[in-house]
């Protein structure tokens, strides 16, 4: 079809084909056309596309409220004739808060025209009226040449409040600058006038809160007037403002593009808020464009976009904007270049400083901003500096915190972390298992998630404010604040729940996660992604708490939501499945967990490829399970493959690589008896974590703790104690109530116990128990396992009745919490039975020990190693204590098996001496 009107289909096809192409490719394709009409049509469309900017990107929702509000249409017809002493002459405009009327004194005392701001219906609640009364008095005293004075106020006959203000005949500052083609210097001087006015208001504790071009007018004479301190609040009564609910509603009244981040996020508004909005105004005056684009209109979307926002340097913005849109004397590339140079440096830095996301990092006051602008205008050095690389890095992490923490890497590395020490636990007896079980929960997820949390908040990592205080505060605030934006509230509750979880604060974590789920249940999108996330988090927390059935239930629900939204073979579903695998593992179904985790790994491999960090991380998880299933060769191969990928992708000093070192160390140590290589891997992990995270990071503490356990089992007590003490200092500095402290002290107590210092061990474990009771509560197994450990020390000191009583309590609680067949309950039962034997009732102990041995054999099979061997020893000891000659052969057989198993390792198990002694007795 040459000539004539080209078909839309042809235009569209060509347009879509080349719209993403570069200019060269475009002109080549267009040049090939022999149909000039088609070519012209596509070129016009391309040009329209280039110029369209943000056209249509804001949904019509932005107007819906105003358009659909019939009451405001009703107000059209019924302008009051008079308001107080003023006759109403007409309407000047309408805004979010109401309408602005033109008035004049009706009593003829003055020939003065005024602007009357009449609040809209619905804003005449008691709260508003009460606050209005208070503000009116304050604002009436606010006199400044650049502030439109508030002269009067009252209530209309229909009850709506109104303000009477100085009538300003001027244009919005942006329009004024554009029409007059003002120079950069003139624009900056106008901005300075604004700063002075706002600064004067701040001195009277009034924050404007809603600065935007339509509130900043410039008269024909060039005088700036700030309007509308209408929603200004008195700083001094911030608490009260928080309670009235209007601050929460404030969001809706604001113009999103000019709202400071803290306003969008519902955080406290301070004078720093005005610093931001003045920065935004300056940005617009100097570049002709808004600093940040806020496309969403609803609170949740806005909050999300604020979290993602980065500020484009004004000079960079100018460089990529068409000259027509810029405040240039002439719209030419040359002028644009000049403007770019003019902005780069000082002005970039000044605006960036005013527009920082965190209020405390902006200029400390509007006066400081003004001072820098003045310095710039007079050619002196300004105080504003570009962000440091370090800060930018942390900022990147902060921005991506949620995304990163949602990643499988974090959640799944929990699996790797806990399993690293599984074997150590199995090899040791009950006390050691408590320590290892604690370590395995916490390890990797903390080093990563909490690492982000700390790095993201450099101010906090110095330890000046303990993280728990921050989180307590965050939790408290989230329970009440943001209720007007329930989806944001639910998101943040879930996010804080995750951090709490990563810090081992499981009770607050669960509370927050439950609230998040409850809130989402009431939302229109109750079955959406958000619900999937919240349920997934709740499930993961329950898993950490050891409530495995509940955890599995929540995770299954989360999975069904995610699968429905995202497909069964998507990564989001895989992530949750990996958690389910972990629950299965905890429930003792390692084979089921392995199948599941293998499918997760396959999904990652298929989606992201073999060489991806997350694929490698899941391969490592799989290795943990293979190890558990005695497929040691496969496990070692998988560990090494995964480790090679991580070393290649992340380097040898990355925390995630370090996790691989820990895992492989554990396998080599326990399965292969290659203590030397294991030790060297632990050291590498320690070095890597120290370098990557700093010497006081908790992941360093966790590595030290694992090394403490390693040396403990090597019977290298001095080295063990030294590592534990280093770990203790690290955790104490982070938080004197840190849950890890309990684990470290448990290790130190074991060091003492192994060396026969039972009283010292008892005292240490009493502290552990007290700490766990406080931070984990009575529904956490660790609290009772610590008590069990203490009871063992008591028994060793011969206070058998006291020990028995405690051990009965421990057994009862652990059975209730974890189930009678759980490893923890079986250990407790065995310990109780041992005390009973020592008291002199071996007949009573024997069936208990037999039962334990039978269950452990069934559960652990031949991998039971030391655990099964100790069970054999206990049964044999009972038999010998009962002392029937016919039982001796059985006792001997059991003891031989136990001795064989326990002496395989070097050094032999610490109870080996008792086994040998019993063997001697049996012969």
């Amino acid at each position, binding site marked *: 079809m040459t000539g004539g009107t080209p078909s839309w289909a042809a235009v569209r096809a060509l347009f879509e084909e080349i719209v993403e192409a570069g200019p060269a490719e475009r002109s080549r394709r267009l040049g090939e056309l022999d149909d000039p009409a088609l070519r012209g049509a596509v070129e016009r*469309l391309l040009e329209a596309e280039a110029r369209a900017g943000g056209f249509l990107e804001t949904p019509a929702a*932005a*107007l819906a409220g105003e358009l659909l509000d019939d009451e405001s249409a009703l107000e059209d017809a019924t302008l009051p004739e008079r308001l107080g002493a003023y006759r109403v002459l007409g309407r000047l405009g309408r805004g979010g808060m109401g309408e602005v009327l033109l008035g004049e004194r009706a009593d003829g005392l003055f020939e003065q025209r005024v602007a009357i701001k009449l609040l809209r219906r619905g804003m005449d609640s008691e709260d508003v009226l009460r606050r209005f009364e208070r503000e009116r008095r304050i604002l009436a005293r606010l006199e400044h040449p650049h502030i439109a004075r508030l002269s009067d106020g009252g209530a209309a006959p229909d009850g709506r409040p109104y303000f009477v203000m100085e009538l300003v005949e001027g244009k*919005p500052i942006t329009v004024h600058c554009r029409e007059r083609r003002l120079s950069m210097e003139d624009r900056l001087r106008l901005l300075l006038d604004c700063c002075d006015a706002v600064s004067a208001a701040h001195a009277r504790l009034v924050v404007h809160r809603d600065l935007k071009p339509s509130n900043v007018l410039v008269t024909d004479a060039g005088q700036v007037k700030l309007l509308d301190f209408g929603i200004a609040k008195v700083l001094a009564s911030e608490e009260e403002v928080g309670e009235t609910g209007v601050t929460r509603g404030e969001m*809706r009244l604001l113009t999103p593009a000019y709202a400071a981040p803290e306003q969008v996020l519902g955080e406290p508004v301070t004078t720093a808020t005005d610093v931001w909005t003045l920065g935004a105004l300056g940005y617009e005056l100097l570049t002709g464009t808004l600093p940040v684009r806020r496309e969403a209109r609803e609170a949740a979307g806005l909050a999300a976009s604020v979290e993602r926002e980065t500020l484009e340097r004004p000079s960079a913005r100018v460089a990529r904007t068409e000259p027509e849109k810029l405040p240039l004397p002439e719209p030419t590339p040359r002028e644009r270049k000049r403007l770019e140079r003019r902005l780069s440096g000082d002005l970039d830095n000044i605006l960036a400083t005013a527009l920082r996301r965190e209020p405390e990092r902006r200029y400390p006051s509007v006066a400081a901003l003004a001072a820098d602008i003045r310095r710039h205008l007079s050619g002196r050095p300004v105080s504003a500096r570009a962000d440091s690389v370090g800060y930018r890095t942390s900022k990147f992490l902060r921005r991506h915190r949620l995304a990163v923490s949602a990643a499988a890497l974090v959640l799944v590395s929990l699996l790797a972390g806990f399993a690293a020490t599984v074997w150590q636990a199995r090899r040791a007896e009950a006390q050691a298992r408590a320590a290892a079980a604690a370590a395995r929960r916490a390890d990797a997820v903390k080093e990563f998630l909490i690492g982000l949390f700390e790095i993201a908040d450099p101010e906090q990592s110095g330890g000046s404010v303990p993280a728990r205080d921050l989180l307590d505060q965050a939790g408290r605030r989230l329970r009440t604040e943001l209720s007007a934006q329930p989806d944001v509230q639910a998101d943040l509750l879930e996010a804080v729940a995750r951090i709490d979880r990563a810090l081992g604060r499981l009770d607050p974590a669960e509370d927050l996660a439950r609230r998040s789920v409850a809130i989402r249940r009431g939302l229109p999108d109750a079955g959406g992604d958000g619900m999937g996330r919240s349920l997934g988090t709740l499930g993961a927390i329950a898993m950490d708490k050891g409530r495995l059935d509940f955890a599995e239930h929540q995770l299954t629900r989360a999975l069904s939501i995610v699968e429905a939204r995202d497909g069964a073979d998507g990564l989001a579903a895989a992530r949750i499945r990996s958690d389910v695998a972990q629950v299965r593992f905890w429930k003792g179904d390692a084979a089921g967990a392995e199948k599941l985790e293998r499918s997760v790994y396959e999904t990652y491999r298929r989606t992201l490829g073999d060489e991806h960090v997350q694929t490698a991380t899941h391969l490592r998880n799989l290795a943990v399970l293979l190890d558990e299933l005695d497929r040691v060769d496969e496990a070692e191969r998988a560990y090494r493959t995964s480790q090679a990928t991580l070393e290649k992708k992340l380097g040898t000093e990355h925390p995630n690589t370090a996790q691989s070192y820990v895992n492989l160390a554990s396998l080599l140590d326990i399965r292969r008896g290659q203590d030397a290589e294991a030790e060297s891997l632990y050291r590498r992990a320690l070095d890597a974590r120290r370098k990557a995270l700093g010497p006081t990071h908790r992941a360093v503490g966790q590595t030290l703790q694992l090394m403490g356990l390693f040396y403990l089992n090597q019977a290298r007590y001095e080295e063990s104690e030294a590592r534990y003490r280093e770990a203790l200092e690290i955790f104490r500095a982070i938080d004197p109530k840190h849950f890890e402290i309990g684990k470290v002290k448990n290790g130190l107590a074991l060091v003492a116990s192994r060396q026969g210092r039972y009283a010292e061990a008892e005292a240490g474990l009493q502290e552990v128990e007290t700490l766990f009771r406080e931070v984990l509560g009575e529904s956490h197994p660790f609290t009772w396992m610590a008590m069990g450990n203490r009871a063992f020390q008591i028994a060793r000191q011969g206070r058998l009745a006291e020990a028995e009583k405690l051990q009965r309590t421990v057994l009862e609680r652990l059975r209730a919490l974890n189930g009678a067949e759980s490893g923890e309950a079986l250990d407790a039962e065995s310990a109780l039975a041992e005390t009973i034997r020592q008291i002199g009732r071996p007949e009573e102990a024997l069936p208990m020990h037999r039962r334990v041995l039978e269950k452990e054999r069934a559960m652990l099979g031949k991998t039971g190693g030391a655990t099964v061997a100790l069970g054999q020893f206990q049964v044999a000891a009972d038999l010998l204590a009962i002392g029937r000659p016919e039982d001796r052969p059985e006792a001997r057989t059991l003891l031989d098996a136990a001795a064989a198993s326990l002496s395989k390792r070097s050094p032999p198990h610490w109870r080996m001496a008792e086994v040998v002694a019993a063997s001697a007795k049996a012969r």
Partner: protein
Amino acid sequence: MDDHPADARPGAPEPPPPAEITAILRAAEAGDREAVDRLFSILYGELRHIAHRQLRQVPAERTLSTTALVNEAYLKLSRGASWSARDRSHFFSIAARAMRMILIDRARSRTRGRRGAGVRPLDLDAADIPVEERAAELVALDEALDRLGAVDEDLARLVEWRFFAGLSVDEIAALSGRSVRTLKRHWQTARAFLFQELNASGPAS
């Protein structure tokens, strides 16, 4: 037997039960014009009702979420019915159309006597512009959208979904079974078309 049900609302009759909605929806899908009109008028009434209720509840609310409106209507009308992806897609098409009409009807009544004043490209971000002026822009957009619909119904529907109903690209992808990437490209085309139309019909800046 109650002549005055407590929730009687003038102009907003109780919508038919979900089963009936489903039947109407299926008939509409089968090409029954009358069914389409009927569903449209139900949705029109329902969306308006929900909007007004929201505005009453939160009087300071300026930026109603049209997405939430449409989703709420969906939840209410589909309750208990099992709809296929095709049903849902069809439902949202009509709902988006209804949302468009609701907004445009109101915009028209707000712009009486203001037409012909020269129409600037729609920029709802420009908070300085009074609502009447933006309403005029919306009406102009509606007309341009009709022109787009005449040559490309598919793209016009996309604009209704995204701009008027406020659905996200991801939501539209889920409803329409198209990839996000494809939709983004289509959106670019539609936007360019409309921008061109609006700029051709009004005086430049």
